[in-house]
């Protein structure tokens, strides 16, 4: 009887674990080691990234006006960058420039130098992500606005 009850308890425990949703954690890096910053279900993460993407799209359009710069003629370039900024905003808490390699992303996000708009952009209008382009750039287009739908369409098929 005891054996049977133990067996039933084990089965119930297995059932509970089998049907619990798997959380996709949000990771941060410190000194090259990956740490789990906070737990998010895939659905929560999807919502967070969508919200951040909308926010970064709005920021981009606003900053294009402020800096008097334009978008790249190929709109998939700013689309991908905006998506990258949104991803970093969710995983690191700040829109760290996605066009650089960092030894320690969390440290850089806290430091702020490369958080968009980065210091080179603010001081010298130098955006190596090609998100904010001056008229003398070979890749500059004519547009100063990008929609959320364009960002989603332009960044489709990519994933971290």
């Amino acid at each position: 009887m005891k054996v049977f009850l133990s067996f039933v308890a084990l089965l119930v425990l297995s059932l509970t674990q089998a049907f619990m949703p798997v959380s996709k954690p949000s990771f941060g890096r410190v000194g090259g080691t990956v740490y789990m910053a906070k737990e998010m279900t895939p659905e929560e993460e999807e919502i967070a990234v969508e919200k951040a993407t909308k926010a970064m799209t709005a920021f981009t359009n606003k900053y294009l006006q402020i800096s008097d710069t334009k978008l790249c003629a190929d709109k998939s370039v700013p689309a991908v960058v905006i998506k990258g900024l949104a991803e970093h905003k969710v995983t690191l808490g700040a829109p760290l420039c996605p066009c650089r390699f960092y030894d320690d992303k969390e440290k850089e996000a806290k430091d702020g130098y490369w958080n968009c708009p980065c210091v080179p952009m603010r001081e010298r209008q130098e955006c190596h992500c090609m998100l904010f382009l001056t008229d003398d750039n070979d890749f500059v287009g004519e547009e100063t606005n990008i929609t959320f739908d364009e960002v989603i369409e332009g960044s489709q098929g990519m994933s971290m």
Partner: protein
Amino acid sequence: MRSLMAAFLCFMTAAEAFVHCKQNSRTLGLRSVAFFRSEGVLWMGEGTEEKAAPLVTGEQLEIMLQEWDTPLVVDAYATWCGPCLLMAPEFEAAASELKGKVRFVKLDTDKEEAMAARLNIMGLPTLLFLDKYAPKEGEENVGARAVLKGRIEGALRKQNILDLVEHHFFEGPAPKMM
């Protein structure tokens, strides 16, 4: 009764393994990969067509840095780097044009952090132009295998890449961008 319990236990274990396996596949974002041979080395690449500029791991690049039949150009990039996306077809086109003469490879810095750090990658994309180390007459051979002939950050057109290859590896003139 015992056999019934054993059968039920086996079923639940299999069901749990199936659920976690599917969820983990989605979590890991597994994609189909293809294996192909290029210059005698087995590469793991995305998609099924052989690319002129294959994606390499840090380990594969380490092997390539020991073999110097032809010079090597490395494109260090990241997933959400817009200029990297812009340059990708230009890099592939340059690789196709110089196939057999120069090796072109791509390194995903999001996935190969150790190699990216070792190559001192900062801005993306970064192109590295590497060749066999040949000590000059009278110079002590320090045991180095490779020498970095040049590096450049930012998206480039195919012709710019070809001009840089010509300059760094085949004594061509320095391009105007330099």
